[in-house]
């Protein structure tokens, strides 16, 4: 655990020593703010409901998370520190977990900075605090799974650009795949499978304020799966 924290600490320090983290978080806040207040017309609608705001999060994360995770491994390769990390007394699992933790922490910071939005909205009408907590829980779980995907793709990519593009594409697919079933009128098992794969589908009940253990299990197992894939890839590289 100490090793994991050492890696995460280094990552977060690097992120905040460079302008990238600030720019990405600011961009996220600006975009979601504009979406809520101007595109959805929150004040115009006159309804004290933030469901729209939270529903758009998986789609926004498909861009935010790759911007946070693209550096993770690709940057280490560029700097040559990849070789340092793999020759320090860390296991592959600790490396992957440390990097996951730091990217997730950055995403969580970005999410935490949106808290003023429901706070100011609550002054206008009565909000159900329980629903809000569930919505935030859903956002964080979805972010965790997205970060795991981003980390895995970053560990495969040769440079930052390909890590970013690859992760955006992968996340968009995972977020939008449940729309496919509606679009083509897929039914039964096919529709169920497509929905089950979707990052956004499992998020839906959270944004309505419902915690479903199946969704919880989906996000947690997706995170574990992609982190495992990343760690397996690093280990395999030693033999090639």
């Amino acid at each position, binding site marked *: 655990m100490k090793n994991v924290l050492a890696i995460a600490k280094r990552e977060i320090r690097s992120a905040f020593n460079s302008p990238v983290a600030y720019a990405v978080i600011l961009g996220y806040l600006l975009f979601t703010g504009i979406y809520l207040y101007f595109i959805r017309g929150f004040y115009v609608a006159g309804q004290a409901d933030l469901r729209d705001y939270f529903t758009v999060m998986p789609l926004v994360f498909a861009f935010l998370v790759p911007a946070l995770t693209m550096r993770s491994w690709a940057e280490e390769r560029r700097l040559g520190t990849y070789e340092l990390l*793999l020759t320090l*007394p860390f296991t592959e699992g600790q490396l992957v977990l440390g990097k996951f933790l730091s990217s997730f922490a950055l995403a969580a910071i970005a999410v935490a900075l949106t808290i003023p939005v429901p706070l100011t909205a609550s002054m206008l009408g009565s909000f159900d605090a329980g629903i809000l907590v569930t919505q935030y829980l859903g956002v964080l779980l979805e972010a965790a799974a997205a970060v795991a995907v981003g980390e895995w793709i970053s560990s495969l990519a040769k440079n930052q650009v390909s890590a970013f593009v690859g992760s955006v594409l992968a996340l968009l697919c995972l977020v939008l795949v449940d729309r496919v079933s509606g679009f083509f009128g897929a039914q039964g098992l096919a529709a169920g499978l497509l929905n089950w794969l979707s990052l956004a589908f499992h998020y839906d009940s959270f944004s309505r304020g419902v915690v479903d253990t199946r969704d919880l299990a989906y996000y947690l197992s997706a995170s574990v799966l992609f982190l495992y894939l990343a760690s397996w890839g690093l280990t395999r590289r*030693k033999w090639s």
Partner: protein
Amino acid sequence: MIELRELRKSYGGVEAVHGVSFTAETGSVLGLLGPNGAGKTTIMKVLTGYHFPSSGKAVVDGIDVEEDPIAVKSRVGYLPESVPLYQDLTVAEYLDFIADARGLGSSAKAGRATAGAAETGERARAIERARAIERARAIERAIGACGLEGFYRKKVEELSKGYRQRLGLAQAILHDPPILILDEPTTGLDPNQIIEIRELIKSLGESKTVILSTHILQEVEAICSNVIILNEGRVAAQGAPSEIGKALKGEERIRLRLKAARGSAEGLDREALSSLPGLRSVSSFRAESPAVLAAEIAMPPADAEAPDVGETIFDWAVSRGYKVLELERHRLSLEEIFVKLTSEGEGR
């Protein structure tokens, strides 16, 4: 101590190292010498647990790198060829990370926090304090040894190439490892820095096992107690720097410059010179000016230690009425051996 046994390593079907064996003892500096692509870096990557061998064994301090890579990594300090630094950290933050990674105590702040939470109180606090001091000392020692005082608060990206190299070295020696593996440690340094770093490596080599790779031959002669010349993934020659020269056949030469006392040196001929006892062949023979002749003569290896060759030549020259301007016994330098050994492979 490091032991390699019949190490082979291939990347994607192409074998880069074909069965290399050697032992490096504690308290010695071993130089790996060879052209680019000879397998130096590959061997180092296996020894640091970055790659696993395709076959054969690599044993570091009695531990097989494949069986317990983490234990090997914690005993090894490694400076890769591309100095691995985080550009957006300061020198202090970078070394702090390395200290964390090496498990050197904990930072002073963390120490205070855990000691405050611990019920055991006094003792835990004392241990924490001792570890924090140990950590601070380790950082101070590495910074001092690598001449980085005054750069502690600087960002890595602001450092010049020489100072980056020093920081890379500081990183490698921070935890005072028994094994040091340095891939071209003096590249990018100016001559004064090179001398400083060589002195440092030499002194580290008194108590540790140091392996360094280089293609600078003076470096090997200056700091290595043993040298392995690699070519195309094989050991081409191995031994102490001075022994390697001796081991090669006919490697001692005599350089000679003669001046005719009167008139020209035309009367002097090759055959007369090479027929002298103790000499083998005249490899070069030319007139520098009408009166001055320069010659290079090879000596058979059996007579390499014969003390009287110089005397023979001198007597012969005097009897012919020549003045000896220069008479120098010359041992083949590592540079020449290196070229000789590594170009043999190209002929195949």
